[in-house]
């Protein structure tokens, strides 16, 4: 794997392979000594142009457990306001000998620009770009679903026959986009539920069903319900009247939780707004995979870094 920029251009075979490598990584994390020598001598730069403690420390843990040297480069604010361009930053990292760059950037497409610009030879790993994609989040979500459903028999499996309902701010969510492509590539059927204001205007090319009615979508009995973080400040742009109405119509509250089949998997990429898009009871219920998602995130990112940095680096 040369870069990991999006899930849209992952085929099922490479996605399953990555999840299987993540299983191997997860196994090693059960040992007393969690650290592997695999990436000794490699330098991984965490290049974060946006605050994201969770994703950054997850990548940091993944790199360190593979014995890579980790450099954290946090460039808050846009490159323009900061006065150094993405190009100059990239060339600096190139001069320092970075082998992989994990980039989080507020501009959609910035990782792709980095990967195709010729500014830097390192493998580029997209850790979230604007409202475009967040591929490792989708991979850890798929890993978590597969693990819950297939347990120790997960290796080699796809997500055929599973139905996933993703609820919330689809328009601004890179997590939703990455999950739409990856989960459908893996064979799942995906339903998106959101207020119409928070769905892109033209989703005819998306392999999903769109619904504006959460109760109707939940009554269909999905295997997985994934709640997305909603930003309260969206109401200022009239996407919805206020957080109370949002919560009533599109939140996973206690009533909706109790109507779900108890085998339903409840997911959230975090950080959660308890009481807004997800009730405390839902977040803490045995159906919830919120903490597993965090654990699996490290394994999946180890797998991604491993595939990026070991073996051949062909396109």
């Amino acid at each position, binding site marked *: 794997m040369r870069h990991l920029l999006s899930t849209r251009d992952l085929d099922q075979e490479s996605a399953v392979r990555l999840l299987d490598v993540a299983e191997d990584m997860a196994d090693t994390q059960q040992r007393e000594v969690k650290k592997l020598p695999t990436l000794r001598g490699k330098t991984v730069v965490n290049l974060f142009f946006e605050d994201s403690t969770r994703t950054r420390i997850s990548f940091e843990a993944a790199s360190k457990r593979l014995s890579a040297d980790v450099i954290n480069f946090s460039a808050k604010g846009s490159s*323009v306001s900061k006065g150094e361009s993405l190009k100059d930053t990239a060339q600096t990292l190139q001069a320092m000998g970075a082998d992989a760059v994990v980039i989080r950037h*507020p501009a959609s497409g910035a990782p792709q620009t980095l990967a195709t610009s010729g500014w830097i030879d390192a493998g580029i790993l997209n850790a979230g770009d604007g*409202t475009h994609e967040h591929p490792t989040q989708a991979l850890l979500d798929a890993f978590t679903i597969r693990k819950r459903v297939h347990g120790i028999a997960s290796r080699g499996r796809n997500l055929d026959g599973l139905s996933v309902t993703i609820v919330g701010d689809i328009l601004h969510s890179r997590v939703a986009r990455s999950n739409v492509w990856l989960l459908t590539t893996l064979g799942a059927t995906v339903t998106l539920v959101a207020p119409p204001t928070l769905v892109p205007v033209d989703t005819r*090319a998306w392999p999903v069903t769109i619904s504006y009615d959460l109760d109707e979508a939940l009554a269909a009995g999905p295997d997985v319900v994934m709640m997305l973080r909603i930003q309260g400040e969206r109401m200022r742009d009239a996407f919805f009247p206020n957080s109370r109405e949002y919560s009533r119509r599109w939140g996973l509250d206690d009533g909706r939780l109790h109507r779900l089949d108890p085998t339903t998997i409840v997911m959230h990429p975090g950080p959660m707004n308890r009481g807004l898009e997800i009730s405390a009871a839902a977040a803490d219920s045995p159906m919830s995979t919120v903490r597993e998602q965090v654990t699996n995130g490290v394994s999946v990112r180890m797998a991604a870094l491993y595939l990026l940095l070991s073996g051949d680096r062909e396109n």
Partner: protein
Amino acid sequence: MTNTYLISGAALPDGTRTDIVLRDGVLAELGTGLSAAGAQRIDADGLVALPGLVDLHTHLREPGYEQSETVLTGTQAAAAGGFTAVFAMANTSPVADTAGVVEQELSLGEQAGYATVQPIGAVTVGLAGEQLAELGAMASSRARVRVFSDDGACVWDPVLMRRALEYVKSFDGVIAQHAQEPRLTVGAQMNEGAVSGELGLTGWPAVAEESIIARDVLLAEHVGSSLHICHVSTAGSVDVLRWAKARGIRVTAEVTPHHLLLDEELVRSFDARYKVNPPLRRREDVLALREALADGTIDIVATDHAPHPVENKDCEWDAAANGMVGLESALSVVHASVVQTGQLNWTDVARVLSSEPARIGRITSHGQGLVVGAPGHVTVYDPSASRAFGTADLAGKGVNSPYLGRTLPGRVIATFHSGFATVLDGQLRPADEVAGSAEQRMAARV
């Protein structure tokens, strides 16, 4: 340096083969078997002679943004593309909102000599959309401004737009609107539709253009004034314009070469050379714009030539500046998008790139066509050529062309401005030679 040129064996736009003699700044003779003593001869066998092209929408960047372009380099780009007149947009620094600035631009153009520079005046002071600029002073200045535009920004306030339309009636002016409803396009990065949804880029909906055009054609009708719409980019805008014209409203419209050829799928590369405002639209919009140009709903092609320094494009999409250079490639792109498809012939090209833009811009020294006695503005074009468009084809300062690496048809072989050559054998003439010719011509006129 000769004052006389004999262009032999050229095809006029209607296909008639002729020789053309340019003497003392004017098109002196047309006909076959012409000879002219002391003339420099241009063998135009197999080439098309077009009236000098006129661009109603150019950003020359001077004064204020000379790192992007100057009047000299911008008009060199114009000459290289076969243009003999360019209308300079007002978003310079200082803004062209006073008689002083427009006269300065006019003078810089006269000194450079590569093309006639006709300044466009700002509609509002500082393009701020709050207070009318001194339209009358600009109209009465030596620059004789007739076209006013806040291009880059929309004259959004409906009262201000109405007043501007009314006010310019006193000197037969026209307001050229950059139709973009600002509230609907906050943070917009590309056309809103299937691709923007997928890429997670903030959308620029077609309705933001169409709603302003609809409002403004009705305002123009109400006050009985004339309106020009800059860079029309959507099929819906074409429908509104078609309706307005059928109703007899005095509205004209332009389309850019890039909106005739390129579509939003290119944005998937996140290559900022494709970032432009209004954005590249859907394929169906491209096809509707071609049809509208062919049936006259859209009157002209105008380049919206917008040079930027390299660093403003060599970056992530959100941070990149909007705009493309277009003067050098315009004729080839028109050739590829509407001539090769059979929708326009060379007579139509002469109309949409010369006579109509001159008429809309209210300049009489250009756009008269290739007739004896007309000023000597001639473009000689090789329609059978084909070239991989590259930076060597760019003559201005900007290299932000979306066509680099593409194969484009045709090539400008020679350009004559006021009877002297600005381009010969496909090469720009040197700046001192052109400036000298321009000075002689000015002196002869006095």
